[in-house]
């Protein structure tokens, strides 16, 4: 998540024509405090129960309950899935380059 913050302007065109959401099963209050502590620029969505994760095929049962796997979707202006990164390798710089290139292609 720190990489998203630090590269936000580059990856997401500074937010122009691009809405970036990070989705987890955490309560909205947890996400808000975490975002405030780290000054994260993205909007977090609270998917308690992973119901949206299930619709997107990313919910997995773990020892600590249902969680959403680390998967990034790009949805085009037409509402269709335009790019999928599964798993999203959050420690790999090339993952962010791939994401940036995909956003650029769509958000022109």
């Amino acid at each position: 998540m720190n990489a998203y913050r630090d590269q936000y302007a580059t990856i997401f065109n500074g937010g122009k024509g691009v809405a970036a959401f990070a989705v987890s099963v955490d309560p909205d209050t947890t996400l808000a405090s975490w975002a405030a502590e780290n000054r994260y620029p993205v909007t977090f969505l609270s998917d308690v129960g992973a119901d949206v994760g299930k619709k997107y095929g990313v919910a997995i049962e773990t020892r600590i309950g249902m969680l959403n796997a680390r998967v990034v979707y790009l949805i085009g202006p037409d509402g269709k899935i335009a790019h999928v990164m599964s798993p999203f390798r959050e420690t790999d710089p090339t993952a962010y380059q791939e994401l940036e290139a995909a956003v650029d292609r769509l958000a022109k």
Partner: protein
Amino acid sequence: MVKVTLAALALIGFAGHATAQERPQPKPLAVGAQAPAFSLPAATKDGVSPKAASLADFRGQTVVLAFFPKARTGG
């Protein structure tokens, strides 16, 4: 020797299968599929948002949906 190797492979295969069942992998949607609608409570660094965020509100924009397991896990 061949029998032993085959038995070992079968065992590894079985163990792999069992592990896969215990740890199901995500089955992401394919490119080109309609993105399922959602409306979820939203939060930013400025606090919990007064209004839920719906995919429908962002039609005409590019939307990045980054699913991740849990806050405070380093990703």
